[in-house]
């Protein structure tokens, strides 16, 4: 008896979208040719990994009740600067690649710190500031190369994005480590719990002694940092970086976060559910492509997903409120 109940509780803890992933995979396995091909599955995992890394910051921002629209722009800009540094060296070695990663992360963190300063310490509207920094970052990425693409790196640079250790992609290992660390940080450290507290209610958090300004600053700083890392990963995986590389990533990240189960109210959800969300979005996009649906439909589908999930959430919430009211008035 006890075991069954435990098992049931375990099942309840799995986010709903995990079942969605299974359903979608079954559908595509029958309808799309080559979907279950190991190469394709690996491709899905790699795409999901990059989306996941960029979604880390977005999840934290949404958990804190804010939003970060600038992650796509930051990824483009930092990838671009890292790429230009690598291009300036004739034959980059492992040390140069490390420096390039650090440069990407530094650029991302700098933009993130600006966001955090304006939003956390100055109290400006969060999405307006990040929307502007998105435009600034994309604009800078465009001006640096005059709109051209930086491409053609050697194997050392591509190692992180498409290399293997013991038959496992480096990208997947790296993502696993980064996400694992961040899940630990979000659930087991003071900072992570502060983020949840701020998202639940800024006033309550403030009254309880949480340094709201600093927490928000750190959230945006980390968001920029991971966007910067993602910029390098994109460079390393696709072997090129252009002024529109990260275009739409902020939107896909939001989709992954929302589909995973984090809500815009803040304080609800977590990084673990974003993992499933990122997988779901990537699988759907990949499957639609394999079915032969026009490429143009892809982003539209993601848009429909976001609105659909929000609609379902809103209906659920309304029902919950109704039920709660009924209980109050009946007793």
């Amino acid at each position: 008896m006890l075991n069954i109940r435990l098992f049931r509780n375990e099942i309840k803890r799995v986010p709903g979208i995990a079942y969605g992933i299974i359903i979608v995979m079954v559908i595509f396995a029958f309808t799309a040719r080559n979907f279950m091909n190991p190469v394709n599955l690996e491709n899905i995992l790699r795409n999901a990994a990059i989306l996941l890394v960029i979604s880390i910051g977005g999840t934290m921002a949404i958990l804190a009740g804010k939003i970060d629209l600038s992650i796509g722009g930051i990824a483009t800009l930092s990838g671009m600067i890292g790429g230009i540094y690598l291009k300036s060296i004739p034959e980059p070695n492992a040390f140069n690649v490390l420096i390039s990663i650090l440069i990407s992360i530094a650029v991302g963190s700098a933009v993130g710190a600006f966001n955090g300063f304006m939003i956390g310490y100055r109290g400006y509207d969060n999405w307006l500031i990040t929307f502007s920094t998105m435009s600034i970052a994309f604009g800078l990425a465009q001006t640096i190369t005059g709109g051209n693409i930086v491409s053609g790196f050697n194997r050392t640079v591509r190692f992180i994005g498409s290399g293997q250790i013991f038959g496992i992609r480096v990208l997947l290992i790296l993502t696993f480590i980064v996400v694992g660390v961040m899940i630990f940080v979000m659930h087991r450290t003071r900072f992570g719990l502060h983020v949840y507290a701020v998202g639940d209610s800024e006033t309550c958090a403030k009254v309880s002694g949480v340094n709201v300004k600093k927490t928000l600053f750190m959230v945006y700083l980390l968001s920029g940092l991971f966007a910067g890392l993602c910029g390098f990963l994109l460079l390393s995986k696709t072997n090129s970086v252009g002024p529109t590389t990260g275009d739409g990533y902020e939107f896909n990240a939001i989709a992954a976060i929302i589909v995973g189960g984090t809500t815009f109210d803040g304080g609800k959800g977590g990084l673990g559910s974003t993992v499933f969300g990122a997988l779901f979005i990537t699988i759907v996009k990949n499957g639609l492509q394999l079915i032969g649906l026009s490429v143009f439909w892809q982003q539209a589908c993601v848009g429909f997903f976001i609105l659909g999930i929000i609609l379902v959430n809103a209906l659920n919430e309304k029902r919950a409120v109704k039920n709660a009211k009924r209980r109050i008035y009946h007793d």
Partner: protein
Amino acid sequence: MTKNINLSLLKKNSRLIVLLLLLVFFAAFTDTFWGISNWTNILNIVLDQFPPLLLIAAGMTMVIIMRGIDLSIGATVAISASLGAIVMNSTQNVALGILISLLVGIIVGVCNGVLISVVGVPPYIATISMKWILTGICLVVLNGSSVYGFPSEFKALLQSTKYNCFIISLVLIFLLAFFMEKTVFGRNVYVTGTNETAAKLSGVNTVMVTIIVFAIVGVLSSITGLMYMSFLGGVDANLGSSFPIRAIAASLIGGNAFGGGKGRVTNTIIGAFIMLVLTNGLLHMGIPAVWQQFVLGALIIISVVAENFDVKSFLKKRKKAVRQLKKEEIV
């Protein structure tokens, strides 16, 4: 006292001063921008670029007053123009094409409004999802290419004289301004923006207000689309990709503040003019067009910071600091 009055006057007319300074600056430092013998450029700005920007910025201003945002206006422009263009080309009926285009604008606006007010989706999420959905539909409908070759009557309608679009846009702006300042509906918009709960409690139908405002924005976007159709002679899906940020920039530079309930539609006229003068002037200074995106983002941040910059409290703080310093020196 007089000092305070002077300061407030200065703040009130600061936008006009900025505009004049910019005009003088560009006239003095470039040969082609503006001169006694060179009217063509300024005329081109006023007659060609001003009307569409003014319309979308005015729509954005209304939404901003209502404490919302519309990131889908660019996509609305694209889809209403392209659907209108397709109908117009296939039936050779100009009136029908225009009607369809306006209808599409209204439908999109109503969808946005319902999502935001009835379902309760945050405005930026609803409209950014809408943007991707509409762009996707537009790409599918146009199959990734563009529509051109409209009936000659259509071009004659909007381009028979140089001043048509300009006059239409100004008339619309003053109608909107009248609507917002002098009618019950307009005041309701302000009240909804200032405090939605209070508005609801005092009997304002906030749901209806939101839907109507977004519908108006949709109509304004489709009129913008028609203007672009008439002077570009063709439409494609990426027509309006930079419109949201340009509209936000123009609206905020004009002196409308974020946070709801503040701002006026007529402010947008100066805002749009400042933006056009600046972007055109930079081109005439020899700064490449790729810098524009960067400039737009920076402009938004600067204008937001400037809006919140309180001269009086700044002076007070400085006085206090100076006093403190003196005290410390004495001690």
